[in-house]
């Protein structure tokens, strides 16, 4: 049995220079990579492990970005509350003004509603007394309608 396994459709003879890819010449490399190497960043060809890690990092960064944007849009009252607690300086006043504008715009769009609804329900639960609980339980135990005549 021959060890020589070549693709008959491949015109390149085995052992030719085209079979083994040569490393890119300095002139062929991207200018950004050359700049990075000149700045002292050691760049090497990534391994499979590196590629997986890069992929995981991009996945994490996108997840964090989406979570941040969601919170910036739906949790604007917290941003405003935080801005009002900053010590009074020119910078904090600017942040406070921006937060106020941001919050009011999102309120106009109704984006504060999910948070407000949850907050209101939760506050109602916080204010429950034992009497309210007993009353609710009695109402639930009572028959829903009149019993059907036999």
């Amino acid at each position, binding site marked *: 049995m021959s060890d020589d396994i070549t693709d008959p459709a491949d015109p390149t003879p085995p052992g030719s220079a085209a079979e083994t890819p040569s490393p890119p010449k300095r002139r062929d490399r991207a200018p950004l990579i050359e700049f990075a190497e000149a700045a*002292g*960043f*050691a*760049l090497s060809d990534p391994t499979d*492990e*590196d590629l*997986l*890690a890069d992929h*995981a*990092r*991009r*996945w*994490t*960064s*996108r*997840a*964090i*970005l*989406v*979570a*941040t*944007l*969601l*919170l910036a849009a*739906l*949790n604007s009252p*917290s*941003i405003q*509350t*935080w801005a009002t607690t900053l010590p009074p300086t020119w910078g904090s006043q600017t942040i406070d003004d921006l937060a106020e504008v941001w919050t009011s715009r999102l309120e106009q769009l109704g984006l504060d509603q*999910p*948070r*407000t609804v*949850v*907050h209101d329900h*939760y506050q109602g*639960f*916080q*204010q*429950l*007394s*034992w009497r*309210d*609980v007993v009353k609710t339980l009695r109402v639930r135990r009572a028959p829903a309608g009149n019993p059907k005549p036999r």
Partner: protein
Amino acid sequence: MLFPTMIFGLFFLVVYASTWSLNRENERRKQFLLLASWVFYAWWDWRFVGLLIASAVLNWFVAKQIGETEDRRRRHMLVALGVTINLIILGFFKYYGFFVEQFGEMLKLAGWERDLPLMHVILPIGISFFTFQGMSYVIDVHRGKCPRAHSLLDVMLLMSFFPHLVAGPIVRASDLLPQFAKAPKLSREMAAHGLLLIAWGLFKKTVIASELATNLVDPVFFDPTAYGAGDLLGAAYGYAVQIYCDFSAYSDIAIGVAALLGYRFPRNFDQPYRARSLQEFWRRWHISLSNWLRDYLYVPLGGNRDGLVRTCINLMITMLLGGLWHGAAWTFIAWGAIHGTVLIIERVWWSAIRKPDWPRMSPVWGVLITFNVVCLAWILFRSDSFATAMAYLQGFGRLTAPTLLTPFIVTLIVGGLALHALPSRAIERAASWLCRIPSPAAGLTVGVLILLVEAIRPPGIAPFIYFQF
């Protein structure tokens, strides 16, 4: 800079983006993380950044000297020197006032009343954690359990790394230094676990612990004489839930933040109120501290190698010093003494009294007894003085209707305890699901979870309980 604040959120986003952009240059990455950690620490008091640096330089130098010498006696002297200097730093900042006060009391009893040089020493935040970490590095290098750090930068980052800097977990050099040796690699499982731990920690701290502190525990412990048995019992259980949710939340967020930066921290809590004995409790509560005390105090004292009596003495010494580690007050020492006594009772029971053919107690009874012993000890831990603790215990005889135990508060206590009934690796399991979904969906899931927490949390945030230690 507290974890559950907007400013920390912004700080973390900057640190996250910058560190990963420096990923191919590990040294620069570490330098950046060190600078960020100093900024984090300086947010409380910039003056103590110098102490942090000095402590790291000291431990690096001593470990370097230990590593470079073969002479056994010199190595022993060096490790003793390193441990002593660390203890002097801790003793001065944390215990100076306490010891001077006690010395003054002793002189007064002996009839030699004197004006002693009392100073108001400011306690640097997290000093107990970073000095213990420094000590463990020096001792581990001496014992050969951990290789010497490649550079001063590694030791500085080991001691100053911001996720664990102020309230642990106490991460050993042998855990963290190998991770500093090369640029970390993130996996989706690790990131998903980190994101969920952060959301979970925020919930436990800002919803359960904060509400219980404000509406039940703080008012009752402020004046226990004003409340009846129901409120006092509720506040004792409430404090058990509060301190668990508070401290484990810090650990969860710290582990989560470190995971997002590519580093693994050890687990610090494992559903402690499920423990069937106090010995088991200490394997589940503040695991990094109990392991530290075991490896660097209990075992060097002789551990359980020299007979039952010696074991009991070693247990008591370890727990008394563990109590003192928490704070410079007799109430903490008494808390340690209670734990030490019960651990001794358990040890004597299992090794000297109990016969092998006796029937075994139901695990439920073990959990109930252990939990109530722990709660009794928490009363001393939380009280600012023995007088307050005694007033608290006497109040159990006042049978009046509870005023603070609303349905909401009872739900928080029961819910906080019910967390211990969850499967033991629930977050890991949820993370293994989260990491399989596309990143926008994962981001939405985490965002919605945090939004829910934000919607129900009370405004403002109290510092974590363990910051004072």
